[in-house]
C-alpha cells in the first residue's frame, strides 16, 4: 500500500501556468465578480488551432479545423478563432446564431448534431455546410430548400457502422449517422434531390479513444467517397469528427499510481480513496476485479494534434497506405471537429474556499463557493487536482500534504465537487481560491445551472500584454486592437 499523497497534478502550458501564478490578479477578479468565476484564454485556442493546422501541413492536406462549439459557451473563444485558421461546428440553432453573429462567415461554419426545422432553415438560408445525420434530415432539408427557394446547401453524409474484413472490430453503438450498409438508398435520395442538395463529402464521428476504430471508419469513408463519384457527384471532403483527446495530467506516473491504488482500494487492500468507497465503475466480486474503469484516461501521451498526426500516419486497414497519404492522393480535403482538444489549456474555474471542517476520522471537508454543476469534472470522469491559489501568500511554518473532500454549495448529499479524496500540498484556509485548471473543454459550463439560486459563474477573457494581465467580460471580448486615445491630427497626415 502506498501511503503518500496521491496527487494528480494538472498539466499546465506556460500561459495557464503564468495565470495561476498571478494570485493577486485572480483574487481581484473573484472579489469583483464573485465565486465561482470562469476565466478564458482565447489566445490559447488560436495557438491550439495552429497546432492542428501544422499537422495538416505536414500531411500536405487542405480542409478545415472546426471548433466544436458545444465544448464551451464562451464568446471570446469563438471570436478569437474567427481570426485564426479555424472554422466552427455548431450543434444548435443558438450556436449557429452565435457563430454567425460573432464573425464567422458561412463558408467556415458547419451544422452538426440533431437538427430541428428552424436550425436546418437558418443553416440553409445562411449557406453553412450541413453535416446530415440521415435520410430524414436530408429530405427535410431538401423540402425546406424547395419550399423557401433557398440556396443549394453543401451537405456531408454522416456514416456509421463501418466494417472491417479479417478481424472484426466491435464499436460502441451509436444513435447517430447512417449505416454504410445503407449508403445505396442514401445516394438514391441524393440523386432525386440533385437540384436541392450538394453532397460535398462524407463524415463520421466515433466516441472512442481507439485509433484503430477510427482508421476503419476513415477507410470506409474513402470507399464511400468513391461511391459518390460513381453516382456522378464531385465530393471533396472527408470529415473525421473529433475525439482527439486531451492530456490532463503533468505526470503519467501519478496516474498509474493513482489507478493502481484505486484498484487496491476496490479490492479492499487499502482504505477507500473516494467518498463512500465509490469505485468509478470497478468492483470486487469474490476477490476478483470486475467492471471497467469509467474514467477519462487523464494521462494521454498522444492527444490532440499529435493524435491526429498519428491517425493520419497509420496505415489504412486494407488499403495499406497511411490514411493521410490516401486522403491526399485521392485529392480530398480533411475536416476535423476537435472540441476538447481545441479548448485544451484555454480555461480555468476559480472557487473561493468558504469553510474547512475537520472531522474526527477521515479527510477534512473543504466547502467551496461553487457546486458540482459549475465544474463538471465528475460527469466527464476527469480526475485532476485543483491548484491552491492562496489569498495572503503561503502561510508560515511547515506545510503538510492533506487529503480533503471538496463540498459544493448546494444542500444536497450528492453535491461533492468530486467523489474522490483530493490531495493538496497543504490545508486550504477560508478565503483561498481553488483553481480548476484546463477545464474549458466540456467541464466549464456544460452543466452549469442556477439551481437553488446559487450564482452561475461569470466569465472573463484574459490575455497577457507585456508583463501584465488584461481582462474583460467574455461578452465584451473582440479580437481587435483595444481602443486607443483618438489623436486629432487636424487634418494633417
Amino acid at each position, binding site marked *: 500500500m502506498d501511503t503518500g499523497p496521491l496527487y494528480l497534478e494538472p498539466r499546465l502550458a506556460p500561459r495557464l501556468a503564468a495565470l495561476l501564478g498571478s494570485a493577486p490578479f485572480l483574487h481581484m477578479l473573484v472579489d469583483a465578480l464573485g465565486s465561482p468565476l470562469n476565466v478564458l484564454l482565447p489566445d490559447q485556442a488560436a495557438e491550439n488551432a495552429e497546432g492542428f493546422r501544422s499537422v495538416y501541413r505536414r500531411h500536405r492536406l487542405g480542409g478545415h479545423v472546426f471548433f466544436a462549439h458545444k465544448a464551451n459557451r464562451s464568446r471570446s473563444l469563438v471570436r478569437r478563432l474567427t481570426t485564426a485558421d479555424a472554422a466552427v461546428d455548431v450543434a444548435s440553432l443558438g450556436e449557429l446564431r452565435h457563430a454567425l453573429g460573432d464573425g464567422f462567415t458561412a463558408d467556415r461554419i458547419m451544422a452538426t448534431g440533431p437538427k430541428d426545422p428552424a436550425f436546418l432553415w437558418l443553416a440553409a438560408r445562411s449557406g453553412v455546410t450541413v453535416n446530415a445525420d440521415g435520410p430524414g434530415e436530408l429530405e427535410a432539408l431538401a423540402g425546406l430548400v424547395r419550399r423557401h427557394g433557398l440556396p443549394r446547401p453543401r451537405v456531408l453524409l454522416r456514416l456509421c457502422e463501418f466494417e472491417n474484413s479479417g*478481424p472484426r472490430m466491435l464499436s460502441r453503438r451509436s444513435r447517430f449517422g447512417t449505416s454504410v450498409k445503407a449508403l445505396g438508398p442514401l445516394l438514391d435520395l441524393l440523386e432525386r434531390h440533385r437540384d436541392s442538395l450538394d453532397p460535398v463529402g462524407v463524415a463520421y464521428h466515433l466516441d*472512442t479513444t481507439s485509433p484503430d476504430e477510427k482508421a476503419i471508419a476513415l477507410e470506409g469513408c474513402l470507399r464511400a467517397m468513391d461511391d459518390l463519384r460513381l453516382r456522378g457527384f464531385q465530393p471533396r471532403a472527408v470529415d473525421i469528427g473529433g475525439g482527439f483527446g486531451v492530456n490532463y495530467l503533468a505526470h503519467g506516473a501519478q496516474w498509474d499510481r493513482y489507478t493502481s491504488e484505486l484498484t487496491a482500494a476496490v479490492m479492499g487492500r487499502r482504505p477507500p480513496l473516494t467518498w463512500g468507497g465509490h469505485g468509478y465503475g470497478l468492483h470486487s466480486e469474490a476477490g*476478483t476485479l*470486475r467492471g471497467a474503469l469509467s*474514467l477519462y*484516461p487523464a494521462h494521454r501521451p498522444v492527444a490532440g494534434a499529435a493524435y491526429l498526426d498519428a491517425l493520419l500516419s497509420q496505415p489504412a486497414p486494407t488499403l495499406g497506405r497511411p490514411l493521410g497519404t490516401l486522403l491526399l492522393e485521392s*485529392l480530398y480535403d480533411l475536416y476535423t471537429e476537435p472540441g476538447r482538444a481545441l479548448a485544451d489549456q484555454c480555461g480555468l474555474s476559480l472557487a473561493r474556499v468558504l469553510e474547512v471542517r475537520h472531522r474526527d476520522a477521515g479527510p477534512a471537508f473543504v466547502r467551496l463557493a461553487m457546486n458540482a454543476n459549475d465544474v463538471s469534472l465528475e460527469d466527464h470522469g476527469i480526475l485532476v487536482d485543483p491548484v491552491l491559489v492562496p489569498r495572503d501568500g503561503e502561510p508560515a511554518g511547515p506545510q503538510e500534504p492533506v487529503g480533503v473532500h471538496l463540498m459544493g454549495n448546494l444542500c444536497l448529499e450528492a453535491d461533492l465537487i468530486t467523489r474522490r479524496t483530493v490531495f493538496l500540498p497543504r490545508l486550504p484556509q477560508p478565503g483561498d481560491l481553488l483553481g480548476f485548471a484546463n477545464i474549458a473543454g466540456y467541464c466549464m459550463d456544460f452543466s452549469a445551472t442556477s439551481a437553488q439560486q446559487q450564482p452561475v459563474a461569470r466569465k472573463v477573457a484574459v490575455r497577457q500584454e507585456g508583463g501584465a494581465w488584461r481582462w474583460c467580460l467574455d461578452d465584451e471580448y473582440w479580437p481587435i486592437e483595444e481602443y486607443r486615445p483618438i489623436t486629432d491630427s487636424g487634418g494633417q497626415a
Partner: protein
Amino acid sequence: MRYDSITEAIGNTPLVRIDPAVHGLRHIDLYAKLEMLNPFGSVKDRAAWNMARSGLPGARERGATVVELSSGNTAKALAVIAGMHGLSFKSVTNRMRIPEVKDLLLLLGAEIEELPGRSECLDPTDTEDPLTLFHQRLNQSGSAHLHTDQYFNALNTEAHQTGTGPEIVADLDGRAPDWFLACVGTAGSSTGVGRALRAHDPAVRVIGLVGQKSDFIPGIRNIDEVHAVGLFDPATYDAIESVSADDAIDGMLALVRRCGILAGPTGGAAYRGAVRHLKPIDAELTGTDRQSAVFIVCDRVESYLGYVKQRRPELLGRPPARNSVTALTDIEVRAAQVIEVADAQKWLAAERPLVIDLRSSFAYAALHIDGSVNIVDELFDELVRGGMPFSKRQPVLLACPVGEQSARYAALLTRMGHPDVRSLAGGIIAWRDAGAPLVRD
C-alpha cells in the same frame, strides 16, 4: 517418437540450462523451460488442450463454436484444436495488438472480434463493460458455445500442475528448483507449476512477473489487470515484480543471439526478470551452496518482428540502398526539372512522354491523367533501386499528389543518367485545380 495425433506432442518440453557466461550468476543454475517447443508454438497448448478436450465431443454434436477471450497463443492453440475436430473458433479480445498473430489466427480459420476502445466522452448510460456484455451473451440459453474461460477455468491451472510442474522436477533429477519465475497472463502456468513444485518442496519460492503499467508486453498483464483474472491469487507468489517492454526485448535478444533459444518477448521478460531478481541473491551465496531456478519461455520470436521494429527499429536496420531518394541532396532535389500544368499539357500532346502516377492504386483508379501508368511509390522505389526501369530515350513525366515526391524521383532518375525526366509542378492537385481533365476508366 511416433504419435497418432499432434495433440499427443503437447508437453514434455526440454529444460535447457542457460550458460552462466550469459547470465553471470555464479551460484545459481538457471534453466529455461522451453514451452515454445509445444506443437502449436506456446505454453498455452497445454491449457487449451486440457480445457477443451472433454467438451469437444459434446460441442461437435451441438455444432457449437469454441469461444475464448484471448489475444494470441490460447486462441492459436484453440483454433487448431477446434479445426481438427470440425468446430469453428471465435476469439474476443481488446488486447490483440500483434498483427502477425491476428493474421495467423485468420489463417487457422478463427473469427476474431476486437472490443471497442474507451469512450472519449463519458456515457453514464453505458453501465456495463464490454466483457460483461460478452459474458451475458454467452450465458443466454440456447447459444451453442464451448467457452473455455481460461481466466477462470481450473483446468488451465491443472494442465500445469499435472504436466509442466512435474516435468521440471523430473528433469532436475527429482528435486524442485529453489526458484520459479513466471510471467503472469492468465496466471495458469505460474499457479499450476507453483503448486506442483511446492507440493514437492514447500520451500520453493515463486516470483510472478507483470508488465509495467504504461508499457505493453504481449501475453502479460499489468499489476492492476491481474486482479481481474479469476485464477490469480496474490498468495501464490512470494513476490510480484514488474518488467518493462525494454526488459522484454533485451532479454529476448540475449536468449535469441547468445543462447540459441528463439524466444518471444514474454520469454525475454521472464529471463530478464529472473536474472534481475536472482542477482542480489546470488551475490549473498558462497562456496558450494548451489541453487537452481527455472523460468518459462512461453513462445517464439517470429510473430513479434513488427513489435520489435516499432520499439527498436535499429535492431532490424538495413544499410541504405543504392539509388535511393534518401541519398539525394537538397540541391539535387531543387534542381529537378519541373513542368507547370499548362506546359505539361502541351508537352503531352506534342511528345507523348510516359506519364507515371506515383499514387496508390486506390486513388489512381478513382481519377487520373488519361493514358498515365500507375506505379505506386513503394514499388517505384524498389524498381529504381535496381536501376533505370525504362529506356533513356523515353521522356517521362512523374506525378504525385502535390509534386514533392515526384520532384525527388525526377532528381534521382536524373542522377542515374536519364536526360528528360520532369516532375508535374503542384502534382495532380494542381492539375485538378487548373481544370485539366482527369478520367476514370
